[in-house]
């Protein structure tokens, strides 16, 4: 499993508290979707997004890797739009799309995963009245993170076992033992949690 997507740095954006950054992102996304609907407004959105990116001083290589997919999609969509509707709508739609994704990617790149998890924990506190227990949510997330390599390992083992027997396993032949062993792992995990008093 590759590392989290965030890159370290000490720019103004890196230092901004995660919760405030998420709120700002939400506001930004709404503004881009609702207001950047003319060529002039879309241009402003692109300039603001570019300015934010340059403030964060993200390495060019990382920036390209994070944005190349949306730039490819935007190019294709822009070409289709140009064909359908003309230059101005094509510019507005592609700018909206790229800016919406770019500012979200920027928050991910400048915020540590642990800070985002803390922000999530705080953000869930008001949902206590609806029966959401932030501590249990955090526990579930942590367990899920540690279980990814475990389940990945199970899948690898089953594939190797099949190869050792000279079988190229289909998805069902592989899937049934994978799910059964995943459920067995969950069973052990559940017992370990109960033994540590999670149910009390």
């Amino acid at each position, binding site marked *: 499993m590759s590392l989290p997507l965030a890159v370290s740095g000490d720019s103004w954006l890196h230092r901004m508290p995660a919760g405030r950054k998420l709120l700002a992102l939400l506001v930004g996304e709404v503004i881009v979707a609702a207001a950047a609907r003319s060529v002039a407004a879309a241009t402003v959105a692109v300039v603001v997004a570019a300015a934010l990116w340059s403030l964060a001083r993200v390495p060019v290589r990382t920036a390209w890797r994070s944005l190349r997919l949306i730039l490819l999609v935007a190019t294709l969509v822009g070409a289709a739009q140009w064909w359908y509707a003309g230059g101005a709508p094509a510019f507005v739609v592609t700018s909206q799309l790229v800016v919406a994704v770019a500012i979200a990617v920027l928050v991910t790149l400048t915020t540590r995963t642990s800070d985002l998890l803390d922000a999530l924990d705080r953000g869930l506190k008001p949902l206590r009245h609806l029966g959401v227990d932030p501590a249990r949510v955090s526990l579930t997330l942590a367990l899920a993170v540690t279980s990814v390599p475990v389940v990945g390992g199970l899948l690898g083992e089953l594939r190797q076992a099949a190869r050792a027997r000279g079988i190229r396993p289909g998805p069902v032949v592989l*899937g049934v033992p994978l799910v059964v062993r995943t459920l067995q792992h969950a069973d052990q995990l559940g017992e370990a949690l109960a033994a540590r008093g999670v149910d009390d």
Partner: protein
Amino acid sequence: MCLPAPSSGTVLCDTDPGTFPPLEEAPVPQLQTDSRPATARRSTSADIALIAVFAALIAALGLAPPIYAFGNAVPITLQTLGVMLAGSILGAKRGTLAVLTFLALVAVGLPLLSGGRGGLGVFAGPSAGYLVGFVFGAYVTGLLTRRFGERDGATSSFLGTLAATVIGGVLVVYAFGVPVQAWRLGLPLPTVAVGAGLFVVGDLAKAVISTLITRGVRRAGVRLPD
């Protein structure tokens, strides 16, 4: 040899030890009933473990190399297979929570979506609707599997589970995914729907695979807490 006792009419046998305690004295076990309604039941440690481990399964299936179906013609990534299995095996509530857990990990920056994508950008991009569709898709799959896919709690109906998986894991996911995609790309809905239709074949294949796996897992005798 047994004879009716002359006075009481009770059948007395030779082997009767004659010291049976009266039935009334036997302790009647009091069933512990939870006063909370079933829907508001708090997640137990077993539920938390199942939710976390299935979120990991969805991630692991997305990261695994694609599996080739139909004589190696179609490479299919298996992330949505994980979503379907979460619904059909864990049930509506836990399946939905497993998908939400998976999406939360993606949102906080782990590259767990197929192709190694992750972060908040995917929730602002053109395929964000499909991710939202995963949540409702797992819920509907779980709900309908319970209703149509299970007979007597033990045996299962293949067609019922398949129908539940196609409705929840394919139709519901596309019902969220296609309109959002059309909106984000500024393209007419029918155009996007035709484009998305190319992927329906792979997703229907995954629904069949998910149903067969679910049946296999049930036949293996796995019982989950309700």
